[in-house]
């Protein structure tokens, strides 16, 4: 038999357990959210790192020289193409006087001039080619930087979203916590009720035990049987072997199997039921041999 004080302790214990479970649920949910965010951040870091490595890789000496050579070749090619053909300053001789000496000198001087202009143009193209390569490299780096900026923004945004996620996850065990709080409240109320003597299981149990101690048993089948029916309304007393007419038996002193079983139940099982009527009913409805005793109903705990 269990009283309200015990029930209060049990409810409080269950409430505490429920709250612990709720906290564990919250912890698991928060850990899960953090883990997912860690994975996202790791992926984004990888993307940013790949961009950086790509940018850095192209800055190597070999790549730089290759890019500059390409730009220089393009510049020099454009200059050479421009220099090819076009108008020449061929003034020509006067009055058909074709001096071979002058013509030969012109040829030599033009060749020298052509070479000179070519060398000068090539040198300038080389100088400008460095700038071209530098510009392309700067553009490429700027694009990488923009890409990294976007990734950084995504990292910051993702991290910012984690805060409300963690906050919400911290409420993951609220149901269990509420159940725990409910049980603790029930336990507290039960304790208060027990302290004020309301619905005391101790009283009920003591009362039942006292009655059982002085009562006889019928149909218990457990060796404690004191009387059993033998027909014709008579009963055999097992200890004394006396045959007793049923009408002479005070049934209020006897307990049924159901009453004995209930009294012998573990205390926690008594929290969820009512005690059977006390005591054994008389075999004949016409004879009111006893005054039934009922236990007050125990408080029900409805867990959803």
């Amino acid at each position, binding site marked *: 038999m269990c009283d309200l004080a015990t029930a209060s302790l049990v409810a409080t214990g269950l409430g505490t357990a429920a709250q612990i479970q709720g906290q564990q649920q919250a912890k698991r949910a928060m850990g899960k*959210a953090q883990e997912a965010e860690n994975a996202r951040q790791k992926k984004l870091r990888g993307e940013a790192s790949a961009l950086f490595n790509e940018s850095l890789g192209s800055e190597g000496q070999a790549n730089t020289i290759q890019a500059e050579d390409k730009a220089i070749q*393009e*510049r020099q090619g*454009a*200059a050479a*193409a*421009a*220099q090819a053909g*076009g*108008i*020449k*300053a*061929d*003034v020509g*001789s*006067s009055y058909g006087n074709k001096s071979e*000496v*002058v013509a030969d*000198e*012109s040829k030599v*001087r*033009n060749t020298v*001039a*052509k070479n*000179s*202009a070519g060398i*000068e*143009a090539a040198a*300038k*193209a080389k100088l*400008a080619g460095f700038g*071209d390569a530098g*510009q392309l490299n700067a*553009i490429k780096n*700027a*694009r990488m930087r*923009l890409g990294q*900026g*976007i990734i950084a*923004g*995504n990292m910051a*945004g*993702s991290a*910012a*979203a984690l*805060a*409300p*996620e*963690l*906050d*919400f*996850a911290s*409420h993951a065990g*609220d*149901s269990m916590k*509420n*159940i725990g709080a*409910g049980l603790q*409240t029930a336990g507290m109320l039960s304790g208060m009720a027990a302290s004020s003597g309301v619905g005391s299981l101790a009283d009920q149990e003591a009362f039942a035990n006292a009655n059982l101690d002085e009562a006889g048993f019928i149909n218990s089948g457990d060796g404690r049987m004191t009387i059993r029916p033998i027909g014709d309304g008579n009963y055999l007393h097992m200890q004394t072997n006396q045959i007793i007419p049923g009408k002479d038996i005070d049934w209020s002193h006897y307990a049924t199997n159901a009453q004995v079983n209930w009294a012998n139940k573990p205390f926690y099982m008594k929290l969820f039921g009512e005690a059977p009527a006390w005591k054994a009913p008389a075999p004949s409805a016409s004879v009111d041999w006893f005054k039934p005793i009922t236990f007050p109903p125990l408080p029900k705990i409805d867990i*959803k």
Partner: protein
Amino acid sequence: MCFTSSGPDYGAMARADEEARQARIKQGMASIDNTFKQFNSDFYDRRKQAVLDSTMPQLNDQMTKTKEQLQYNLARSGLTDSSVRSANEAEVNRQMDVNKAAVAGQAQDYANQARTQVEQNRSDLIGQLNATGDAQAAAQGALSRASIASAQPSISPLGLMFQNTTGLLGQASQAGAYNRQAPGLQAYGLPVRTISPSKERTVGN
């Protein structure tokens, strides 16, 4: 007693908002890339060619006039059939070749300038997109900027490309053309009849 959960999942809502923002940026980037893909090597080659097409005729024109001035001045000086002519022809040709290379380089510079401008526009748009997460504004901005960038730039006319290095190529001959008292080569203190090709100063000699 209340055993319900803690209301709407505001954590998931925040995550969904962030994912939507990232998706908008991705979409905006796609719009920008799509709009700016016209600015490829062909575009800059065309820009370069446009500059060449614009400036090379100017250079040819200057060359023609310089050649004419040389022709006049040589004739006026009686040096048409002399080494002076050879030296000046070579000098003009040299300057022409240098100038043609310079014009080609200038065209490349214009193309580079356009490339920088386009990239600056693109960079600005991406910066705005990243800051606002507004894909639509990014797309509209990309179209607007691309339209401006693809317009032909104003190209400054060529300056005086030929230098009067010998005194026969431009200004001196012009002076002689309009002033019969102008000394021509005598302006340089040299008697016309005593000048010899070996004493003529030309670049490359």
